[in-house]
């Protein structure tokens, strides 16, 4: 039985909840994982102490973890992690780390896993147009998509040890650049409301923004909207040549549901579609479909949601 290691997902200096999902995924591979927490301050690892289903927690402490550097992180984590199968989250940064860690150990990496059955792992391929199941023999590095596995309960009491480690930085930040918008990025959001060309004009995205503000959601856009209107930046684009998102709730407004767009959002947990065309392909993927113009539907949605949140 190969050892299982979960690399904790860190967001804004704390352990992200997907770490608990990774423990569940490790349990599905047949064991209780060691959770390794990359940190500059070992107290960050305390939150992992209560994750049930793990064997122990190691706070891997290094100045190298102040800022992501692929080479340094792989080196510093490799020094701490025992041999075995390593699980990471499937954010762009963690997938990058997973690939480097695997290469460092001459292992293969399997990315974006959404199902585990013994040694068989399933991931979406061709932008979600098909699923691929692979068999791993021996240790591997595996990245796991968020919102797929249930989070392990917080009823554990794991022993936490601290190990100092180091890695040589190969990049140096010169400046952090202000984001074009202060809004949440679609890649980070649990709820996304996106507009397509059916919104008629980029000015009408304010109605999506109002709902996003009510829900704490990000605003996205289809490729058609990004290509048509200069005011809608590529950073908002969800789809094959934009961002692949996996939120709990995706609200598509005035989006027909081209293959391009579906590729980026079809794995969302719940999908709401609002479109005036009853035959729009997006409705085949919607949990809740409303055949209506956005002018009719959005004010009702906004006032109902505002009432709930008040």
């Amino acid at each position: 039985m190969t050892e299982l290691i979960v690399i904790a997902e860190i967001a804004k200096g704390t352990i992200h909840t997907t770490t608990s999902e990774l423990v569940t995924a490790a349990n599905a591979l047949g064991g209780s994982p060691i959770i390794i927490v990359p940190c500059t301050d070992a107290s960050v690892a305390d939150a992992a102490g209560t994750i049930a289903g793990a064997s122990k927690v190691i706070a891997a402490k290094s100045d190298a973890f102040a800022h992501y550097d692929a080479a340094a992180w792989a080196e510093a984590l490799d020094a701490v992690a025992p041999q075995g199968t390593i699980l990471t989250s499937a954010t762009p940064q963690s997938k990058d780390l997973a690939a480097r860690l695997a290469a460092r150990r001459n292992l293969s990496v399997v990315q974006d896993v959404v199902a585990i059955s013994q040694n068989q792992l399933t991931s979406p391929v061709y932008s979600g147009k098909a699923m691929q199941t692979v068999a791993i023999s021996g240790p591997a590095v595996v990245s796991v998509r968020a919102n797929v596995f249930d989070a392990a309960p917080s009823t554990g009491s794991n022993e936490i040890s601290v190990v100092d480690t180091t890695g040589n930085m190969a990049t140096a930040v010169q400046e952090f650049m202000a984001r074009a918008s202060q809004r949440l990025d679609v890649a980070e959001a649990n709820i996304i409301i996106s507009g397509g060309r059916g919104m008629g004009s980029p000015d009408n995205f304010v109605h999506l923004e109002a709902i996003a503000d009510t829900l704490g959601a990000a605003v996205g856009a289809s490729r058609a909207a990004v290509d048509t209107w200069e005011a809608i930046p590529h950073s908002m684009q969800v789809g094959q040549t934009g961002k692949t998102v996996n939120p709990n709730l995706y609200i598509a407004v005035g989006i027909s549901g081209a293959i391009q767009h579906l590729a980026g959002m079809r794995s969302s947990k719940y999908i709401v579609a609002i479109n005036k065309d009853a035959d729009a392909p997006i409705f085949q993927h919607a949990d809740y479909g409303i055949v209506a113009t956005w002018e009719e539907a959005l004010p009702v949605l906004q006032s109902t949601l505002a009432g709930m949140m008040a």
Partner: protein
Amino acid sequence: MTKIVVLVKQVPDTNAKIVVSGDRVDLSAVKKVMSPYDEFAVETALRHRDASGGEVIALTLGGAGADKVLKDAKAIGVDHIVRIDCEEELDSNSLQSALASTLQEMGAEIVYCGKSAADTGAGSTGPGVAERLGWASASNVTSVGFDGGLTVVAPSDGGNARMSVNTPAVITCDKGDIKVRKPNVKGIMQAKKAQVEVKTAAIQPSSVTIVAHSMPPAKPAGKSYEGGAAAAEVANLLRDEANVI
């Protein structure tokens, strides 16, 4: 003379319908193209050469059918095109080992590739090859500068950061604000005549093997409503049934 290598991969056209027949995808009727993010990598490699001199070599791994993407790269201006001859399906470990040993043999000094390939979407090749070569890497890069050393713009901590990158390095390219140049008639003619240099590489056995492909699970039919007033009911269901708000 700086040796700039760009890794390119042939993938099914991203607009193609993917069909599973038996337990494998059937790509026989699907048009094959250069993976879209690799196009940004080729453009960036050419800009690197334009800024600081050197030569650009496009490298792929595959059977003779993959020569087409090399010719596409040649048509927009790469200097040499090279294919590692291999028809097998490789796992990431075998693929990266073959690429890394070939890059070493070629004397590559900087490598560009797409941030991920349109077929697997994995994004493992760039950082994996860098690690095997002991090089720096920067991923999902939207802009590259060549003055006074290599600088990149890449996502960082919820925003973007401009970073200097030690060289040699592997840079994986996202769609940035650059336009990929189009081939002109001269380029297309040169690509037609260009010879693909075919190399062999030692291929390690794969430890990850494909068991099956399948279609994504069909979603159960959702609830549908007519008219904007239904948005109120949907909002309630999102709270009470789906528990997502």
